[in-house]
């Protein structure tokens, strides 16, 4: 078996890991078995560098319905209904082939949500690219990733309601594409993925299996990117939203008719991980016959069938007497369905090629005994990342600086992107992009859910702990602005190579920040995803924890909006524990300052109370607009309120800084007497009205000019 021994390194396994496999099996693995182990023990499937850290995140919450470990998490939103959600990365495929990489990222996260029985109602996405101004590659990745997301989400008829895009040089080679899906399900109809019932039939349904995506989880997702990435194109999957549309309706009908024992989607590592995870969760074994799998190409090897990442496939467990009914429902939806195996009591994943046994693997070894590594962190003594090139003259006056910020790639309007997404399908979208800080989706029985996705890698690069805390606070603040209370959180940890001590340090500090912020806000982490090894020859990406949050609001007619609403309304700054600084700010970036200095500390208890006050103000109608002060600071927040409302404002800021950043502040507007109720947390800044934004009498800019600059900033780069 020397050929097998030589292959394990190509498949991403270390010598020690190979020896451990030999020990677990009591013999050397054959080709099929080695392929299966290499995927199940990859970082992407096995979380071998992050598993211990993830266990430190809080998972308890009064509204929790489904926590980490299932295909998606879920929280209760009342009336027996749960909101299911999860965020997942598709970074490496998108860096190699952005359209299909992003499209299949959406397809994969949709399947995660309908695999637990929920109907997807919304998609959000979080994207990172290099600087578009100087890089044709970054513009290409952006254009094609956005087109891919739109292609899949629009075609399947799920609204894309929000997201974020940032441009920073460290993402030049290694872009990030994180997709989040939100779905709804009646709690008593939730289905698990645990296989059960010896003798029950395992049915594969959906698309045929081909050679696309062979080894995606190990080769692409668990190693650094290099120069030969074009040669990795065959490891990128090709998506077909039409197939998924039928697969979705078919799956929901199968569940509605209670025909299934268990359901699981096929994602990374295909049949291998789906079958072994279903078996592991149920404490059973599964026998599969790869000869029965419908193929796109006739001559596929058993190992290829087992690890193919062909999209739009699901695996289910069915009682034998219901198999015919399952096949009939699939037939009606023109979805291929084939019985390919059965549940056994052996505790083994056994792979047959017809009658020949070609793989015999202990399920616990595959799923639960993946080696887990200790991180070896080392705090860097100086910034890991070079200072960005200066593009904004530090001598500009306040008005010029504000326009520079508003038109910059990171702060300019995202209209160019979000207009390529269907945000209205499903008839639930009460707040669309640029109407409010979070999207609002109404529920049939009354009430609504709000969703937001956030993360600022540059600030995490400056201070991983505080940067990660800020990501959670930002999400919660966005929910507060529409009147929503956070119920649960999902996260995607996008980092460099964790085997490198400085990256390990970033990861540990950021997860500590996420955990502390979630505990302080009382928000459980219901699941997520880890994407490591995001680096190439140019170095690592910024450490980028992306946080998605779901909240609820009782009355969608009282959903908050960000734009100033009415002339004569008072404008106020609501703040708590707010001590903004220019360290790590957008202004510092545009001026080319190094990534150093201290991010402001935040009193999490005070900020939680502030979010509650804003939420209450929005719900009661006291606040006619609410907007969180974030990138670009107070001046940018004021300008955004003017642009969104199409109306000006005259304000005096006193000693509040124009462009400094830090958590714990909102720009709100409403009747003067209503704002007075916020007491010392509120500082009146001025009044809504006119068609000019005037700050301290020294900055006077027409709203039309602000809007033009904001609108043209991103579109003009493309």
């Amino acid at each position, binding site marked *: 078996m020397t050929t097998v021994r030589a292959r394990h390194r190509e498949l991403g396994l270390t010598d020690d890991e190979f020896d451990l496999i030999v020990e677990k099996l009591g013999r050397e693995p054959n080709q099929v078995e080695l392929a299966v182990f290499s995927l199940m023990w990859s970082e992407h499937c096995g979380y071998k560098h992050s598993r211990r850290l993830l266990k430190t995140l809080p998972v308890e919450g009064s509204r929790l319905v489904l926590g980490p470990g299932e295909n998606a998490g879920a929280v209760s939103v009342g009336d027996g209904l749960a909101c299911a959600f999860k965020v997942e990365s598709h970074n490496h495929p998108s860096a190699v082939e952005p359209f299909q990489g992003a499209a299949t990222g959406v397809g994969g996260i949709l399947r995660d949500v309908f695999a637990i029985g929920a109907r997807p109602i919304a998609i959000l996405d979080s994207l990172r690219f290099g600087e578009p101004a100087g890089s044709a590659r970054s513009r290409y990745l952006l254009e094609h990733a956005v*087109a891919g997301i*739109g*292609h899949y989400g*629009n*075609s*399947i*008829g799920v609204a894309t309601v929000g997201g974020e895009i940032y441009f920073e040089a460290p993402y030049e080679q290694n872009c990030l594409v994180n997709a989040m899906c939100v779905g709804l399900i009646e709690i008593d109809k939730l289905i698990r993925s645990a296989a059960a019932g010896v003798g029950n039939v395992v049915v594969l349904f959906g698309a045929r299996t081909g050679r696309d995506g062979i080894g995606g989880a190990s080769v692409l997702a668990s190693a650094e990117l290099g120069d030969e990435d074009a040669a990795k194109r065959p490891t990128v999957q090709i998506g*077909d*939203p*039409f*197939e998924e*549309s*039928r697969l979705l309706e078919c799956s929901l009908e199968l569940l509605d008719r209670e025909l299934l024992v268990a359901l699981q989607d096929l994602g990374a590592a295909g049949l291998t991980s789906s079958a072994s995870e279903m078996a592991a969760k149920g404490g059973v074994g599964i026998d599969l016959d790869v000869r029965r799998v419908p193929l796109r190409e006739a001559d596929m090897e058993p190992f290829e069938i087992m690890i193919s990442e062909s999209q739009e496939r699901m695996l289910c467990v069915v009682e034998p007497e219901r198999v015919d009914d399952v096949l009939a429902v699939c037939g009606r*939806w*023109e979805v291929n369905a084939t019985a390919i195996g059965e549940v056994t009591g052996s505790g083994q994943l056994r792979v047959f090629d017809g009658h020949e046994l070609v793989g015999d693997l202990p399920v616990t070894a595959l799923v639960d005994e993946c080696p887990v590594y200790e991180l070896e962190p080392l705090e860097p003594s100086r910034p890991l990342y070079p200072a960005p090139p200066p593009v904004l003259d530090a001598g500009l006056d306040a008005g010029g600086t504000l326009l520079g910020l508003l038109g910059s790639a990171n702060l300019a309007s995202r209209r160019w992107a*979000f*207009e*390529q*997404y*269907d*945000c*209205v*399908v*499903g*008839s*639930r*979208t*009460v707040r*669309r992009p640029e109407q409010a800080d979070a999207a609002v989706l*109404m529920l049939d029985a009354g009430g609504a859910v709000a969703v937001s996705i956030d993360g600022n890698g540059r600030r995490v690069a400056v201070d991983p702990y505080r940067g990660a805390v800020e990501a959670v606070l930002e999400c919660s603040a966005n929910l507060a602005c529409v009147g929503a209370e956070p119920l649960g959180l999902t996260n995607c940890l996008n980092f460099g190579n964790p085997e490198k001590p400085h990256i390990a340090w970033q990861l540990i500090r950021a997860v500590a920040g996420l955990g502390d912020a979630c505990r302080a806000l009382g928000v459980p982490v219901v699941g997520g995803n880890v994407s490591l090894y995001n680096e190439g020859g140019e170095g690592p990406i910024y450490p980028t924890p992306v946080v998605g949050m779901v909240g609820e609001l009782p009355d*969608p*007619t009282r959903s908050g909006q960000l734009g100033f609403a009415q002339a004569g309304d008072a404008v106020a700054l609501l703040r708590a524990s707010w001590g903004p600084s220019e360290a790590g700010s957008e202004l510092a970036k545009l001026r080319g300052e190094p990534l150093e200095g201290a991010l402001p500390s935040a009193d999490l208890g005070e900020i939680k109370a502030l979010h509650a006050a804003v939420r209450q103000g929005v719900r009661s109608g006291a606040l006619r607009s609410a907007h969180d002060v974030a990138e670009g600071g107070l001046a940018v927040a004021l300008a955004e309120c003017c642009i969104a409302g199409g109306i000006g404002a005259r304000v005096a800021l006193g000693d509040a800084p124009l462009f400094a950043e830090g958590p714990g502040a909102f720009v709100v507007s409403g009747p003067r007497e209503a704002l007075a109720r916020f007491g010392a947390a509120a500082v009146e800044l001025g009044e809504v009205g006119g068609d000019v934004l005037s700050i301290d009498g020294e900055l006077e800019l027409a709203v039309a000019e602000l809007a033009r600059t904001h609108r043209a900033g991103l579109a003009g780069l493309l």
Partner: protein
Amino acid sequence: MRFGVVQFPGSCDERDALAAARRVGDAELLWHGDADLRGADAVIIPGGFSYGDYLRVGAIARFSPVMGAVDRFASEGGLVLGICNGFQVLCEAGLLPGALLPNTSLRFTCRQVEVEVVNTSIPWTRGCEVGQRLSIPAKHTTGRYWSPGDLGDQVVLRYAPGHNFNGSMNDIAGVCNEAGNVLGLMPHPEHAVDILTGSVDGLALIGAPA
């Protein structure tokens, strides 16, 4: 008034159309594989990507069994409303004149648009006034209307100035057949039936026959 809403594989907006129709009457889904309109008084062909838009938008759906029934229903004067992909299907089926071509931007675009009602003599617009503006979302990649000639009164809806983002000929947003019982339009009136989601102007069209 009883609406039937056709569901093809790949339809996206059929549940939204169903819910919109139920605001003004009874409604049920019609399966593409059944050549049976189940006694509907009016048929809605909804938006989406029937058959994945493969081959050409609407080109495969027109061969569905249900479309044979729709064709007979329309020729007998039955009311048919095609929205977005439904408009494309009706053009492919020859029930409406013209064709829908890719937007001049070649991109999918989703935007709230204003359309002007220019013909109020057909059942679908009888509740409107000539020149009335309706705020309705439009969302498509292939919505640039091309007309084979001067359609005269068959032009029912035009994009208001500044709202023709797809490059449609003569700003045409919706057309009817010669008899006026079949209407197709690119914007989505079923997504403009609740002020919470932005507008109720779509009810002026969907609710007109009811």
